[in-house]
């Protein structure tokens, strides 16, 4: 049952399924990605996630560091990540669910 309040209060998280807004989506090309994190830094909706893992270096070696992936759940498809990526490792693709 819905909670009853004497005064206007809100508890629990209200969310909009903004993933449905998307008409294009970002696709990350890991062969170009240097795991710099710019995409995470600028993603307005926090759709870029990070975890520790092996980062492939240009010389073929690897190092431990942050690796980035895109979670499209709430991605609105703005294209900021693709625009800001210094390696041009992200491209915007037409959303095929529409």
């Amino acid at each position: 049952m819905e909670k009853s309040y004497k005064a206007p209060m809100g508890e629990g998280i209200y969310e909009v399924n903004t993933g449905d807004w998307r008409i294009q989506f970002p696709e990350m090309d890991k062969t170009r990605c240097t795991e710099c994190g710019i995409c995470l830094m600028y993603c307005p909706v926090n759709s870029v996630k990070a975890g520790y893992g092996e980062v492939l270096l240009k010389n073929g070696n690897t190092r431990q560091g942050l690796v980035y992936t895109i979670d499209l759940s709430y991605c609105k498809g703005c294209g900021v990540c693709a625009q800001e990526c210094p390696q041009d490792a992200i491209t915007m693709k037409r959303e095929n669910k529409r």
Partner: protein
Amino acid sequence: MTVMEKLAFKEDMISPGISACIGCNVELTLRTVMKILGPNTVFAVPPGCMGGVGVVGWNKQSGAKPPVFFPLLDNTASMLAGIRLGYNAQGRTDINVVAFAGDGATVDAGFQALSGAAERGDRILYICYDNEGYMNTGYQRSSSTSKWAWTSTTPVNASGGGGKRQHKKDFPVIMAMHDIPYMATASPAYIPDLVAKVEKAMSVTEGLAYIHIYNPCLTGWGIPSDQSIEAARKAVQSRYFPLFESSRRKIRITRKVKEPIPVKAYIQASKKFRHLDDEQIQELQELTDERYRFLEAMEQVSQEG
């Protein structure tokens, strides 16, 4: 923790799905700031874009994880000051008491409340996201709107005349001149700088800290969504919106722009300036140069003092 680790691993304090416009850099700014502030925070979101998109919530649900509320358009600072007093009365001094307010609620209707809180030294952290007008309600002008800009209340006629007839209020300097312990400007294009400034502001224990963030509005200004960060960046690169900070009137430019791009290169990104002729653009260039010179002079005075 590195900045990237903070951004990657600090909890997102805002609902994962809010109705901000696609690409909105205010949404980015809010999520970033709130990650740094963390859960021991009470924050005010007055009527404006972030209130409108659901950050305070809908019906009986909240749009954020920490306590959040709507102040009135014009009393954000005074409500927060009261919240601080309420916590003081209970001996709870570690809570961040924060405003995340648009320019309308800050430089126009809320100015008296903010100025009063600054003068009294009320211990609050006030963040203004400046998108140069009442962008939530259809792009009406504010005193923070740039000169000559189109807004729905400073319209442009068929022959290209019109636009706002007055210059943008130089609000960061006005706040610095309140002698508050911390004042900074910031930009969503310079996230590490923004994070550092929020952290400095959080550490202020005596008085009010103020951060003024310049957020180009994609919908209201006519900017493609993927240019969200680039537009903000050009405002800084052109010196139109300089990044600086001030503590008790000591001013320091935190990002010196040695070789600025022309203001024209910045304003070309926005449709709201599309009708400007060369003379008007030149006027904006001169104002920009003048304000930057003023800032440099202030910085120099501060260093001498």
